């Protein structure tokens, strides 16, 4: 608990005044207990207030428990309430004393006044003492049947409190059935809502052990029940509406008519002033239209205005929550907000957390038509006095440049930043220029001219310094002074605290030497000597490696340290599409704010009533048959990926995927077959950071791209039913229920992609392999297909989601199967079918 307030600034009762007071209170309370004198209640109120205020600030007042109970015999409802509050707080830790309260609580449960009945019942259920559950059953049963709706609302929640104390008592008393009855019949909407929440909690906890409970939980999603809730929607309070809408979002409508009916019914919820209701409604709209691509797009159009209103009408905290959701949506459909980019311009008085999200939005909505305006606006922020904001803005400009829009103008702008001569701006910009050069080597001339003018003395931040040094090494030919700058940096080796910078310095000097040996020889000698003597293991090892390489053969050294480079075409995406889909499934939850699926930040028991598919998903990873070794490894690698924080991952993936393009030679080695194989081993042992193999290695093997690795399992003879059919809604339902058993990324023959201008090309091709298309959609370059296939001899089905990027020829595959033991075999079959697409 927080420390007691020190100051005596206000004479309020919640200021503590010492430990001795508690015993004083005890005496005073005892004197009052039996008193019937007029004015007693007022005195009691003051004393009770003191007790509660001590409780609030964390002083232990459990010692006055029996006195409080004795004083509770009163008709004053304010006193009663204070007493209930006190008892609720301490009963759990004083179960013996709690027994004292049972009597008066039970009596109050039979009071004439429904308010007292409700209050007493709530307190009785909140005692939290397992030994006393027997006393709860009677009053709870009566409460559920009480004529007054307030008492019933309290009782409905009381049942789940009892369940947590003793699940068996609750189930044996048949309370879940009673709740269900009330939920369907009660006139009071709040009673209905409380029954629903209690049942959801009880059944999802019971579901692990009881099939019946699992069925009951499922039945909440049945059509009659969902319609029952929908029809009563307007009766519910705004908060109960959120609960019902969350339930409805899990419902899978049978046909398009149903979908439209639901949307028409809920349309006006989008204009609710409560943002939680609006977001819950949007979730329903997005989820029920998933199978109807064009309607889904219309939904995006429809929800745009309400979302933007929520961003600007609420407190900054609420804007933050809504903006996080906008960001998720914009990642899925970048075009929807591309003409509304001005809404994401930052206002000078907004908190940083809102500004940061807005910058992310601006980078996400940037496209050919608006990049100029957006970058112009961002440049204004760069000059801002607010340093974190300036940094974020520079990064945003860089991100947009890497998205390939209007690079020309952006490079100019970035170079202007360098001329501003503000240290933080220069540092941040250098890092970006380095990344840009990796992607657009053609700009090296312009950039180098400006970068060459920067004095390395003005660059202190390790990341920026490393970037500058990398450029000095990489473009040693074009930068007149490169060897001399490097030399002066080597001279100050001992003052350089960052190992990262020293590593880069070694490599840069090496590169420079290989191009301009006479000028660099001295610096190289000094650098290697300093490096070998370095206390940092990695620096030491790298220096030694270089030294031995040079001794062995300068040409080999050249090939390893300075191989010809290819421009990086795509920087590794920070998140797999699998993860993004999971986050989308959890729309309107914390997952969206944290940009992580819930299993990464919640314990199992707190995952909510409908999170079952994830649990199954995790289970299936564990029980993967051992012969599918390759895929199991891959899953593991992915999981490791997931565990890395985003920034870490960005880096390690950036390195891994662009191995040959950039950075320290050790990374280069890791993707170079043949000659460097020996060094690869050496380096990878020394460099723990390269141990994670790129996740798609295993996939490359599967495609037979000639990587030496353990061969995958031979595809078993899996025969498919050529006439497999499933209607889209059944597909959707199945898709939700089944866990992903195979998820892969692969590449597709560009000739196949070329034929995709005809949308039927791929479905027809796959049909030739007994794999039928259920739904398809998307716009260039992203296409999405859902396929289904069935085993020839039984009704076991395979569901496939296949996302094809026609510009990169990358395919993301997700397979779900009734029979998971054969999913790998099916995956092989599917891939072999796909690999012939366009070649025949």
């Amino acid at each position, binding site marked *: *608990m927080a420390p007691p307030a020190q100051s005596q600034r206000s004479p309020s009762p919640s200021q503590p005044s010492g430990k001795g007071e508690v015993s004083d209170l005890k005496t005073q309370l005892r004197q009052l207990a039996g008193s019937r004198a007029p004015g007693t209640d007022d005195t009691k109120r003051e004393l009770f207030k003191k007790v509660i205020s001590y409780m609030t600030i964390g002083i232990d007042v459990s010692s006055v428990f029996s006195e409080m109970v004795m004083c509770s015999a009163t008709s004053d409802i304010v006193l009663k309430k204070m007493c209930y509050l006190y008892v609720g707080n301490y009963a759990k830790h004083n179960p013996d004393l709690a027994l004292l309260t049972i009597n008066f609580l039970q009596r109050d449960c039979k009071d004439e006044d429904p308010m007292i009945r409700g209050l007493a019942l709530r307190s009785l259920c909140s005692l939290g003492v397992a030994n006393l559950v027997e006393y709860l059953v009677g009053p709870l049963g009566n409460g559920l049947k009480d004529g007054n709706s307030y008492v019933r609302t309290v009782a409905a929640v009381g049942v789940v409190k009892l369940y947590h104390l003793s699940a068996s008592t609750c189930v044996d008393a048949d309370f879940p059935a009673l709740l269900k009855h009330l939920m369907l019949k009660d006139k009071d909407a709040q009673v209905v809502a409380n029954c629903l929440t209690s049942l959801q909690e009880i059944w999802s906890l019971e579901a692990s052990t009881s099939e019946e409970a699992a069925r009951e939980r499922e039945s909440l999603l049945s059509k009659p029940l969902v319609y029952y809730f929908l029809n009563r929607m307007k009766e519910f309070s705004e908060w109960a509406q959120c609960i019902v809408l969350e339930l409805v979002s899990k419902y899978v409508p049978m046909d398009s008519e149903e979908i439209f009916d639901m949307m028409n019914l809920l349309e006006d919820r989008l204009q609710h002033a409560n943002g939680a209701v609006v977001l819950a409604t949007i979730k329903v709209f997005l989820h029920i239209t998933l199978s109807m691509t064009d309607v889904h797009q219309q939904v995006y159009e429809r929800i745009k205005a309400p979302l933007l209103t929520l961003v600007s009408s609420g407190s900054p905290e609420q804007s933050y929550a809504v903006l996080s959701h906008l960001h998720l949506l914009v990642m899925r459909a970048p075009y929807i907000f591309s003409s509304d980019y001005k809404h994401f311009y930052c206002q000078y008085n907004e908190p940083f957390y809102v500004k940061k999200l807005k910058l992310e939005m601006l980078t996400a909505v940037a496209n050919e038509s608006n990049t100029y305006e957006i970058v112009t606006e961002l440049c204004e922020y760069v000059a801002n006095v607010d340093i974190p904001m300036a940094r974020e803005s520079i990064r945003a400009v860089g991100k947009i440049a890497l998205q390939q829009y209007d690079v020309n103008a952006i490079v100019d702008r970035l170079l202007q930043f360098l001329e501003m001569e503000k240290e933080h701006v220069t540092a941040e910009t250098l890092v970006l220029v380095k990344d840009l050069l990796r992607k657009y080597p053609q700009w090296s001339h312009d950039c180098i001219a400006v970068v060459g003018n920067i004095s390395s003395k003005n660059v202190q931040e390790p990341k920026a310094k490393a970037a500058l040094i990398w450029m000095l090494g990489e473009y040693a030919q074009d930068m007149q002074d490169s060897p001399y700058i490097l030399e002066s940096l080597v001279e100050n080796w001992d003052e350089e605290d960052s190992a990262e910078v020293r590593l880069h310095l070694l490599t840069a000097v090496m590169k420079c030497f290989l191009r301009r040996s006479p000028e660099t020889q001295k610096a190289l000698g000094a650098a290697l000597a300093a490096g070998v003597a370095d206390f940092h293991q990695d620096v030491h090892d790298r220096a030694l490696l270089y030294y031995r390489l040079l001794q062995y053969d300068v040409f080999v050294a050249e090939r390893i340290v300075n191989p010809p480079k290819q421009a990086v075409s795509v920087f590794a995406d920070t998140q797999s599409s699998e993860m993004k889909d999971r986050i989308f499934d959890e729309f309107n*939850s914390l997952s969206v704010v944290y940009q992580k699926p819930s299993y990464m930040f919640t314990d199992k028991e707190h*995952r909510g009533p409908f999170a079952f598919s994830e649990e199954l998903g995790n289970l299936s990873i564990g029980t993967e048959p051992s012969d599918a070794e390759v895929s199991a490894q891959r899953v593991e690698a992915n999981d490791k990926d997931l565990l890395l924080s985003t920034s870490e991952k960005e880096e390690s993936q950036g390195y891994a995927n662009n191995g040959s393009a950039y950075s320290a030679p050790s990374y280069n080695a890791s993707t170079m077959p043949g000659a460097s194989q020996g060094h690869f081993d050496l380096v990878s042992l020394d460099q723990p950071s390269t141990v994670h193999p790129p996740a798609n290695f295993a996939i490359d093997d599967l495609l037979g791209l000639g990587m030496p690795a353990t061969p995958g399992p031979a595809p078993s003879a899996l025969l498919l039913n050529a006439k497999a059919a499933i209607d889209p809604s059944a597909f959707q339902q199945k898709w939700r229920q089944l866990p992903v058993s195979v998820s892969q990324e692969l590449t597709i023959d560009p000739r196949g992609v070329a034929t995709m201008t005809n949308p039927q090309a791929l479905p027809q091709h796959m049909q030739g392999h007994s794999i039928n298309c259920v739904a398809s959609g998307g716009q260039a370059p992203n296409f999405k297909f859902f396929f289904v296939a069935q085993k020839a001899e039984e009704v076991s089905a395979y569901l496939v989601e296949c996302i094809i990027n026609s510009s990169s020829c990358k395919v993301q595959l997700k397979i779900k199967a009734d029979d998971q033991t054969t999913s790998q075999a099916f995956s092989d079959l599917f891939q072999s079918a796909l690999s012939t697409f366009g070649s025949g």
Partner: protein
Amino acid sequence: MISQFFVLSQRGDNIVFRDYRGDVQKGSAEIFFRKVKFWKEDGKEEAPPVFNLDGVNYFHVKVVGLLFVATTRTNLSPSLALELLQRIARVIKDYLGVLNEESLRKNFVLVYELLDEVIDFGYVQTTSTEVLKSYVFNEPIVVDAARLPTLGPAALFMQGNKRMPGTAVTKSVVANEPGGRKREEIFVDIIEKISVTFSSSGYVLTSEIDGTIQMKSYLTGNPEIRLALNDDLYIGRGSVPHYGYSGSSGAGAVILDDCNFHESVHMDNFDVDRTMSLVPPDGEFPVMNYRITQEFKPPFTVNTLIEEAGSLKAEVILKIRAEFPSSITANTILVEMPLPTYTTRVNFDLERGIVGQNADFKESQKKLEWSIKKIVGGSEHTLRAKLNFSQELHGNITKEAGPVSLTFTIPMYNPSRLQVKYLQIAKKTKTANPYRWVRYVTQANSYVARI
């Protein structure tokens, strides 16, 4: 579901602390406060309103300097939690009249009473002041509102120490007037927050109005109310009939980009005659929130000139012009402008004969502040400042200073021209007409002129 709710003072003391589920450790308030206070080592970045620490999710909103916090272990909707926290603050304000640390401390038992009914076992039950009235028995201990700077919409209607008719805005919904009788009255406030960004050449780059029609009713017997807005009001930019454009210049239609409504509002006749009907619940609530990006005339234009004047000197001329009718007066205008970081001293040259204006150089933030108590519509004010630098200028001085930002309040003025044409109260008794207050106010949200 919510595990705990608590309110912390600025110093981190618990003012109220309520545990609903018992699945989050008791020390969470302290853990939370420490995390928020030291979010980033430099203390410059504010903690986001939602974060996760060791499996516990913390939500918080800041209201009048107090931290309203909820915790949960479940994957709750952040909008729901944050909206709830705001609502709890509003309900408490409805009951106490004034929401601040003192009133909370004095009334913490009442607050506990409210919290008991608002949330049960982590599930939200109700946040309606109206509904809660029947469950709450403590009488609020009213703190002296006049002594305290009020915050929120009420503050907008203050003119210096003289308050506009809105004393009632700090009145509890349950406490009785000293005379024992309640005054029948209803307040409808049209509050517009405007954001404008001017380019360095004075053009409007972006502009937006975020408006709210806020209602606070002290009527007994819950009569129905009809609220009529402009005839030429349209919702959605696509909904405007095209012929409407050509005829009137300047006085065109009021086009809302989008809006949303309080639960109690009925829109049955809205399409026909732009009226809304509702039975206002007790307490303060927004009848309607709206958003306008249609162009409007900015109430102030700003002209900034910054010029080098010798090697270690520069001159700044700031000119602001009030572009609204002279019958209207803006209050508490504050003009701020960041100056080059190497500025050491600033000499101001204020216009003579104007009371209540003041200019200052905030050395620690390297910022110029110019405050003016009142500006009458149509008038223009100028500030000249001479800057002294500790080092030679390098590059363009306009890149080292600015932008200029303004904050102000303009009562009885709203740039959108949205109007409440009439406010009708369905009469139930023959007693005197209730007081009806319809007030307009405009406030700067982000009003920035680049240089």
